[in-house]
């Protein structure tokens, strides 16, 4: 059984020219190892879901993919993460640029305490992506539109974003990420703080975004993974146990642990 898992993890014959890859990635918080030899490929313009019991390292792995762990003291990383075949931990890579190319949406909606407009325009502004106010307006509108929020907020763009409902705030955060035109969007349990209706909206949005972006989503809800993703990776105790097409993982898991988790025996 272990042999099968191993081969499933490293070979992944179905994936050709992935958008992002992780190879033999290990991560330590001080003395504690949180990730063990993680190998994973992310396919372009698909949604990849990372599932697993809490504390399994899926969020930690996600934060490795745009180097958000750099902001935490005492984290050491070895191994390789690539974007378009370039190692993102390479010295020549600029973190700031990298994070613009790989956007992130967080567990709890975290709009800045500014107006809705300023929230969305923040990224393009700091990256100097626009030359005029008109261009900026355009980006804000398209991004809000793409996040499915425009209709709800178009009359109150100058009002504080903190006045929006939780679901709206989270979609605003997605719009904020989209505004920088990233290539990959990482989502860390984006619906865990939302009610079912808001969740449905965000899930719908993720599905639409798939046509333009590569998306990696961490979720603790297997239903959600099944609904929105094309590929799924199962994490357990800091290791990738199994990865494959979502249908296959949910209907015909190869690993006992995956099966156990999916059928609700632990997690």
């Amino acid at each position: 059984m272990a042999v099968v898992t191993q081969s499933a993890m490293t070979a992944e014959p179905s994936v050709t020219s992935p958008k992002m890859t992780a190879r033999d990635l290990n991560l330590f918080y001080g003395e504690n190892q949180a990730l063990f030899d993680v190998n994973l490929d992310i396919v372009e313009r698909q949604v990849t879901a990372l599932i697993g019991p809490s504390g399994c390292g899926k969020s930690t792995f996600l934060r490795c993919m745009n180097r958000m762990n750099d902001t935490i003291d005492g984290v050491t990383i070895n191994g390789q993460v690539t974007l378009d075949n370039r190692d993102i931990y390479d010295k020549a890579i600029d973190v700031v640029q990298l994070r613009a190319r790989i956007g992130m949406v967080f567990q709890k909606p975290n709009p800045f305490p500014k107006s809705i407009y300023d929230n969305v325009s923040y990224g393009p502004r700091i990256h100097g992506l626009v030359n005029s106010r008109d261009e900026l307006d355009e980006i804000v509108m398209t991004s809000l539109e793409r996040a499915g929020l425009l209709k709800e907020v178009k009359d109150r763009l100058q009002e504080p974003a903190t006045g929006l409902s939780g679901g709206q705030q989270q979609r605003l955060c997605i719009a904020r990420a989209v505004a920088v035109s990233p290539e990959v969007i990482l989502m860390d349990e984006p619906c865990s703080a939302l009610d079912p209706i808001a969740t449905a909206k965000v899930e719908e949005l993720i599905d639409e975004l798939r046509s333009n972006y590569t998306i990696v989503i961490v979720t603790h809800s297997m239903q959600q993974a099944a609904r929105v993703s094309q590929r799924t990776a199962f994490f357990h105790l800091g290791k990738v146990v199994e990865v494959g097409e979502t249908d296959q993982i949910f209907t015909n898991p190869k690993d006992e642990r995956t099966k156990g988790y999916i059928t609700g025996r632990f997690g």
Partner: protein
Amino acid sequence: MSLTFLLLAIAALCALSFYFGRQRAIALSGGRYSNLHSLPAHYGTYTAMWCGLPAILLLLVWHMFQGTIIQGMIISDLPPEILNDSGKLSLALNSIFLLAADNGEHLSVSPEVIDAGKRLASLQIIANVALVVVMISVALVGLAFSYRKISRDMRARNNVERISRYVMIACSGIAILSTVGIVFSLLFEALHFFTKINPLDFLFGLEWSPQTAIRADQVASEGAFGAIPLFVGTLLITLIAMCVAVPVGLFSAIYMGEYASPKFRAFAKPALEILAGVPTVVYGFFAALTVAPFLRDNGAVLGLDVSSESALAAGLVMGVMIIPFVSSLSDDVMSQVPQSLRDGSYGLGATKSETIRNVIFPAALPGIVGAVLLAVSRAIGETMIVVMAAGLAANMTVNPLQAVTTVTVQIVTLLVGDQEFDSAKTLSAFALGLALFLITLGLNVFALKFVQKYREKYD
């Protein structure tokens, strides 16, 4: 010395009554403590409280009135020619007190005053003896009363707890009492002052020279009491101090909170806190002896005429004093900005400084405004630095190279040394004190509201 003795005696009596009360309870229990409602120690505490508390209360009340009553008795016996002249009266009283304290041999005063001095001395002795007698008897009466009340069924614990509750409430009340004390003592003397000087002249007058008479024939008015030059001077020095403290304090907080390595922080943070612990008199000495001459000499090199008591020297040093205050308050405030906001910004590819400037700082702004207001209030009320390094002359100027004076400097100058009470000069210090109190109180209330609002937002 007698006070120490008295307190020790009361303490001994309390200990004794604790023992008696406890023994009696034990005796009543017949050897089985469960026969008693409370523990024997509760009965002991109960008697000790009855013994000590009324006596202490009496001591406080006694001291509050003893001086006034004795002085009243002395004054009533003085001949009318002294009584009717307030200047002579205060002089005579001064001599009488010196005589009573055996310090007045060298005084050449009238026999009435010498007699009064002797009378005062004997009155003081009588009062002290009476106090001892009354206090000890009150303590003993309390002891006897509570001792007799002890019985098997007496709820000693409940009684003790009820009394301790009252004591605790009284202790909390002292906070209110001191505010009331401040307000009344300032208001009382300030109103007294305003009967002599028109409040409008005080608040809007442009000349401050309490020492010199303007016109010799003016009644009860010895000088000019226009406080505007003092307010201008205070504001000028405060402004200079803020120009140093706000940017330096804010940027140190930012560096300390966002950039510094733990090692650097472990060294730099306590070092900054040392600045906060240095007594203000030390800063004053530093300003007067090091900074002011340095500025004057360098000013001379540049062809500037810097006064040796320039507002700049006092302001700069005051700014240094306030740096840690601003820095620790804004550090608190900025560290309360949730990590998720930082993550949001970093996740979009913002650099650290962009995150700080565009996200953290605006989010923390209300708290920082509150911190700065508190710092301003502190600068306005700061006394020693300006007393030692700023001048006495009430110049109306905003030139930082010249000497200005402040509200606090004037309060100190007016009240240090021999004072004649009832003179407008002395009373004006209380009017200034009232102004100072109201301004700083207003700033504090405002600032605390700001900070409070901010805390609620992120808690």
